[in-house]
């Protein structure tokens, strides 16, 4: 039987856009020393998505808009706790406890009250193969927003993580960059939740940046490599998922992990 691989252009588009977005988000999180947030962001995104479904039913607020607003509020809350002097690990623990508890309550309420089981499933594991053109447009909007704002600023964002005081005396409004960071992380994680899924978001936030940091020798190389690794992992995982019949989101995670392991072996297992 001849080998055939069917690729819908919508799948390629949503995975490319999502991967490029996380190719920016991941080095941003690493360079701004926000790795502790990597485990927290998907939780706040899932809670925002669930609360937005409830708000949609109760008040007719469009769930996509509602989830974006709620996600921004939640991420701002945890960053506020830290800026007020709470240790990041303590703030993360408090925030996780809150979001996980509320997620369990919201999930139960949504599943038992509204017939939206497919959506909930896609929020958890991602559903790139069931995307509609409307989903593609929404993903494009989220990605263009995050990429458009952050691409020109990414080097400065990283420099803030390297030496915040020096960036301040160089005339950069660091608090504005902090705000952009919080907004970008909140928008990206909740906006792409349906495509990437809650579980894979943990990997997509962490691995491209960590892999690139171990491979490159310069800031520009690090930023470029994180972007390429995320894109390669995304598209490679999609193809792998189609070839094996496994869930593409899981395969994307495995592809990214493989890139990390191969790069580690290439550096002598360091």
């Amino acid at each position, binding site marked *: 039987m001849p080998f055939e691989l069917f690729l819908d252009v919508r799948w390629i588009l949503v995975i490319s856009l999502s991967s490029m977005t996380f190719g920016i988000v991941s*080095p941003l999180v*690493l*360079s701004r*020393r926000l790795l502790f947030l990597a485990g927290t962001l998907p939780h706040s995104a899932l809670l925002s998505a669930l609360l937005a479904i409830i708000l949609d039913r109760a008040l007719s607020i469009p769930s996509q808009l509602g989830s974006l607003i709620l996600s921004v509020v939640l991420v701002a809350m945890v960053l506020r706790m830290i800026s007020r002097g709470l240790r990041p690990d303590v703030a993360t623990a408090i925030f996780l406890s809150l979001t996980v508890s509320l997620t369990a309550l919201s999930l139960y309420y949504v599943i038992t009250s509204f017939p939206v089981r497919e959506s909930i499933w896609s929020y958890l594991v991602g559903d790139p193969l069931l995307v509609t053109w409307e989903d593609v447009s929404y993903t494009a909007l989220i990605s263009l927003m995050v990429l458009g704002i952050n691409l*020109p*600023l990414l*080097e*400065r964002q*990283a*420099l803030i*993580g*390297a*030496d915040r*005081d*020096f*960036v*301040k*005396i*160089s*005339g*950069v409004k660091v608090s504005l960059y902090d705000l952009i960071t919080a907004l970008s992380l909140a928008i990206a994680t909740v906006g792409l939740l349906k495509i990437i899924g809650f579980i894979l978001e943990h990997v997509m936030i962490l691995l491209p*940046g960590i892999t690139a*940091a171990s491979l*490159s*020798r*310069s*800031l*520009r*190389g*690090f930023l470029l490599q994180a972007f390429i690794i995320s894109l390669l992992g995304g598209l490679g995982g999609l193809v792998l998922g189609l070839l094996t019949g496994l869930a593409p989101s899981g395969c994307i995670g495995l592809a990214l992990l493989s890139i990390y392991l191969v790069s580690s072996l290439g550096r002598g297992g360091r």
Partner: protein
Amino acid sequence: MRVRAENLSVRYGSEIIFDGETFELAGPGLFLVIGPNGAGKTTLFRALLGLVGLRGRVYVNGIEVTGDPERAGRFVGYVPQLNLIDPPFPISAKELIESAIILRKRAPTLRLNDRESSLLKSLIRDLGLSEFIEKPFQQLSGGQKQRVLLARALITDPPIIMMDEPFTAMDPAGRESLIRMMFELADRKLLLVSSHDPTLFLQKAKAVMALNRGIVAMGSPDDVLSEEVMRRVYGRSVVLVERCLHVVDYHAV
């Protein structure tokens, strides 16, 4: 080139670090800030740069810069303590130095122009950075890192340089080379240096400021480095040795 503080008060929570201090430093020349750990040396620098909340006023070259790091940064190049600079991602020595210029550009995507590139090249030559300029900052030795941070502070040619504990994590050869550079700089800039070891700078220091949660003494090295002042600054850490041979040979610095 002049730094002036009026009624400078800094607190961390309920702890008073400075309480109504007034002083003025006029350059060029090397000004040494000494004191034990926790005396307030770093806090003093950060207060002068507008990086910590304070009461009072700070002027640089007659212009008020109180609580305004951007304005202070136009006149002051800052070399922080080495152990505070640990980028969580790879960055080459060259990129770190360039960042001082790039961060000041209006558009974040602008790179160095021809004049700035030639300035960078001359700094690389003058500070002996060419061997490791493309290497990741994280892989450099303490002395190499310190020279890179000094180059970053110098590339915008500010009239005032502040160096916080510049000899942390440095071998003796690295110290010697850095001291030579600092002494040359002090001939044309106001160089403010904090250090645990005042003896390294005695031959060049124009004035010494001794801190211990406030300014204990300030004046010429002969006036400040007396047993009485040192006891007030360092307490029981001061050990009197009747005959002490202290060799400082910086090869005719």
